[in-house]
C-alpha cells in the first residue's frame, strides 16, 4: 500500500527514452497481446529475454525495473500455490482433503504468474522512460481518431493524465488515513476476515472526501487560470514518427505476431 507498484519517470537519453510516447504506448499494447497469447514456457523465456534487453537499452537499474514485480512476490506465491493445489483435479500427484496438486496446476500457475510479471515489468519500463507530459500527448494522439465521431479527445487525454498524476498522491493519502484509523483502533492486521473488512469500510468515506477536496482545489485553480473544456482554439499537429519509432513498432509487431500465429 505504501509504495506505488509502477515506477515514476526517470529522465534519461537512452534509445527507449527518445522514442515517441505514442509509439511506446502502442508497442506496449502489442507486446501485451503477444504475452497473453503465449502458451509455452520457452515462450515466456523469450519474452523475459526481450524484456531484459529493453531494460538494458533504457538504462533502467534492475531494482527499479523489477521492483514493482518483486513487491508482489507473496501474491505470486499464493497464485502459484492455488493453481498448483486446485487447478487440475483429473490427474493429481496425490489427494489430501480439498488439495489435489498436479502438473497441470503447476503449469497453469507458472502461466498466470509469468503473464502478470511480464505485464508489470513492461508497463514499468514504459512509465519509467516516458515523461508525464509525453504520456498525455501519446494518449491524445492515440485517441485522436475518435474526434471523427465527436469525442473530445483532448479532454479525455487531460482527464487520463491528471488521473496518472493523482495515483501516487492517493496511495500516500490512503496510507495516512489507514494509519490514523489504526491509531483509533481499526484492526487491518487482524487474522479475522470480518474484522479486516470492518476496518476497511471506515477508510472509504475519508478517502473519498480527501480525494474530492483535491479535485475541488484543482478545478478551481484551473478555472481561475482560464481553462475551459468547450474551447477548441487549435488543432494539435503531431510530429511524424521517426525511423526508430517505426522500427520499434515493427519489431514488437513481428514478435507478438509470431506468438499469436504459432
Amino acid at each position: 500500500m505504501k509504495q506505488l507498484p509502477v515506477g515514476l519517470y526517470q529522465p534519461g537519453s537512452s534509445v527507449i527514452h527518445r522514442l515517441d510516447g505514442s509509439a511506446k504506448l502502442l508497442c506496449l499494447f502489442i507486446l501485451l497481446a503477444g504475452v497473453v497469447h503465449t502458451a509455452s514456457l520457452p515462450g515466456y523465456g523469450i519474452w523475459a529475454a526481450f524484456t531484459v534487453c529493453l531494460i538494458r537499452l533504457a538504462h533502467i537499474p534492475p531494482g527499479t525495473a523489477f521492483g514493482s514485480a518483486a513487491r508482489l512476490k507473496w501474491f505470486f506465491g499464493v497464485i502459484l500455490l492455488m493453481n498448483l493445489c486446485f487447478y487440475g483435479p483429473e490427474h493429481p500427484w496425490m489427494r489430501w482433503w480439498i488439495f489435489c496438486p498436479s502438473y497441470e496446476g503447476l503449469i497453469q500457475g507458472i502461466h498466470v504468474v509469468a503473464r502478470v510479471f511480464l505485464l508489470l515489468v513492461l508497463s514499468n519500463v514504459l512509465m519509467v522512460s516516458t515523461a508525464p507530459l509525453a504520456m498525455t500527448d501519446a494518449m491524445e494522439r492515440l485517441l485522436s481518431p475518435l474526434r471523427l465521431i465527436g469525442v473530445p479527445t483532448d479532454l479525455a487525454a487531460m482527464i487520463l493524465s491528471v488521473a496518472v498524476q493523482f495515483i501516487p498522491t492517493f496511495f500516500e493519502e490512503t496510507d495516512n488515513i489507514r494509519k490514523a484509523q489504526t491509531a483509533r483502533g481499526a484492526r487491518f492486521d487482524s487474522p479475522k476476515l470480518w474484522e479486516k473488512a470492518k476496518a476497511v469500510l471506515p477508510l472509504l468515506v475519508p478517502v473519498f472526501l480527501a480525494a474530492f477536496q483535491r479535485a475541488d482545489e484543482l478545478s478551481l485553480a484551473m478555472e481561475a487560470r482560464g481553462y475551459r473544456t468547450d474551447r477548441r482554439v487549435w488543432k494539435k499537429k503531431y510530429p511524424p514518427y521517426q525511423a526508430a519509432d517505426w522500427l520499434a513498432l515493427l519489431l514488437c509487431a513481428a514478435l507478438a505476431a509470431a506468438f499469436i500465429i504459432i
Partner: protein
Amino acid sequence: MKKITAVKKSIITAVCIALCVVLPQAFHAIPNAGAVYSPMHIPVLLCGLICGGPFGLLCGLAGPLFASLFTGMPPAAKLPPMMIECAVYGCVTGLLARTVHTKSTYADLYISLVGGMLAGRIAAGLAKALIFSAGAYSMAAWAGGYFVTALPGIVIQLALLPSIVFALMKAGLIPARYPKK
C-alpha cells in the same frame, strides 16, 4: 452551491479513475476481496452519479485499464469483460441520475444505482456468453459470480455510495440535488 462545472466534472472523473487503482489495494489484505467486495465499482458508480453518463463511461473504461497496467490486477484475461461491465455501470448510472427526478435524493440515488448495477451485470454476462467465453458460460455461473459471490460488495455499495454522496454534499464539494429554498 452553483451547478457543477465541466472542468470540475473532468477532474472528479480523473480522481475516480485514480481511486480505481488505489482502492482495490486497500482491500488487498482480504482474500478474494476483488470478487467479493468489488472495490473498483465504487468510484465508477460514484463518477456516474455525480458527473453523468459520458464521464462515467470514461471512468469505467479507464479505471480497470489503469489498475491492470499499474498493479497487474485485474489480469489481462479478465480485463475486457470488466471494462465493459464498469463502462456500463458508469454510463447507465449517470444517465439514470440525469433523467430520474423523484424529488427525493435517496430515491434518485437508489434508482440510478440499482439500474446501473443491473445493466452492468447484464452487459458483462452477455459479453462473456457471446464473446469472451462463448459456449462455456452458463446462467448459473453468471448468477453465482455476479450476485451470490458479489453479494457483500452489492450490500456495501448500496449502503456506502449514498452516504458518500451525502457526505460530499454536506462538505460542499458537490451541489445538493434538491437545494433548499
